[in-house]
């Protein structure tokens, strides 16, 4: 009688363990499949963005003229041009979708306009109420930390002096240099307020797997001056 009971208990325990292990395996497979799908989606978005960029360059960068509509000396960078661009005439469509790249943490995503939950599922997104790239104030881009491909998973590794690139489909590259990092409460929207500097703010959840706080990275627009032999095409003007 006792033997039978023991055997029955053992069977139940084994069954429970089997079910638990199967569930773990299924969950693991699910995570891997989701990660693969998200990565595939990210690659597809980047490929689409690149193809749109090439199509545009084949059309003599017609649309990019909206952003930069004058002839500037060849050594002028996007930051230089941004200084004289009339942002009141521009809309988010002139900049987004853009590619955000951070070489120091191997980040490369397509970023969209509008940081609603649907858009954020696609990748890092620009908070509509904040300035456009290159403009005075804090251009804020929000991204998921641990879900939907975890675009901002490693942003906490960013250090003072790291560079962040925003490349528009028209080929303009805005380069920002990291100047600070903060952890704030979700309600501390004051961090979106910029003053007289041209800044970029990356924001994501903190700590990982929690939305209790917000991690913010502040970066400032910087010029990458060319080094060509004699800056040969500099305008006399």
């Amino acid at each position, binding site marked *: 009688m006792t033997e039978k009971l023991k055997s029955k208990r053992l069977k139940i325990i084994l069954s429970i363990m089997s079910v638990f292990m199967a569930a773990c395996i299924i969950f693991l497979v699910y995570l891997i499949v989701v990660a693969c799908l998200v990565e595939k989606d990210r690659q597809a978005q980047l490929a689409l963005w690149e193809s749109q960029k090439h199509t545009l360059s084949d059309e003599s960068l017609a649309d990019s003229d909206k952003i930069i509509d004058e002839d500037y000396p060849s050594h002028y960078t996007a930051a230089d041009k941004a200084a004289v661009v009339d942002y009141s005439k521009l809309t988010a469509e002139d900049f987004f979708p853009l590619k955000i790249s951070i070489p120091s943490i191997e980040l490369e995503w397509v970023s969209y306009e509008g940081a609603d939950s649907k858009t954020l599922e696609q990748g890092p997104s620009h908070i509509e109420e904040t300035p456009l790239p290159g403009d005075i104030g804090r251009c804020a881009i929000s991204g998921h930390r641990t879900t939907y491909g975890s675009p901002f998973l490693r942003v906490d590794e960013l250090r003072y002096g790291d560079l962040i690139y925003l490349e528009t489909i028209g080929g303009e590259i805005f380069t920002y240099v990291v100047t600070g990092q903060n952890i704030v409460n979700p309600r501390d929207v004051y961090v979106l307020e910029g003053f007289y500097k041209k800044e970029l703010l990356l924001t994501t959840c903190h700590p990982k797997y929690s939305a209790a706080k917000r991690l913010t990275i502040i970066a400032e627009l910087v010029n*990458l001056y060319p080094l060509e032999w004699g800056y040969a095409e500099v305008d006399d003007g």
Partner: protein
Amino acid sequence: MAKKIIGKILIIVAVAVMIILVGYDVYSVEYQKVEAARQAEEDARREIEMLEEIKSTEAREIAEFDRDYGALKDEFAAGIDELSEKLNSQISSIDELKDITTQKMNASKKLKDGLSQMSIPGPLKDYYELEMKFLESDINAMALVLDYYNSSSYSTFDDGEIDAAYWESSYWLREAEAEMERAYSQYDLEYLLES
């Protein structure tokens, strides 16, 4: 009768003497003219020969300078190309950017030092001055860019001085190149500019 004959003879002799004297004078004047012309021709020929000799010496000096400075410049240009390539690939931090800018500045300083130690042919003195101005303004531009990268705020930094330095640098480069072309063409050495 005899007196008459003697008188005639004297007149004839006097006329002959006069003719001889006038003839000699004319001859000597003409001879001097011809001699002067010949001398002038000779002088001109000698001058041409001398100029050609000087010109060929200067042309040789220019060619030698071109070979030596050209080698330095090629090395400089290759270094700049490499740095530009680095800059065009996405670099990851401002420190890397400062490092690349410093390397560019050092490359310009090295070229300037190399040039200042070279013997400059007479016809290239003006070119030398202009090239030195270009290199000095290039070094100055890089120093200003470094100041910018070291500044506390990039978007509020007044970079007008950098723009002016870039403009100045490219201006002196164009002036130096134009002067070089002028000097080389004077000595039929334009082919050196093509290589």
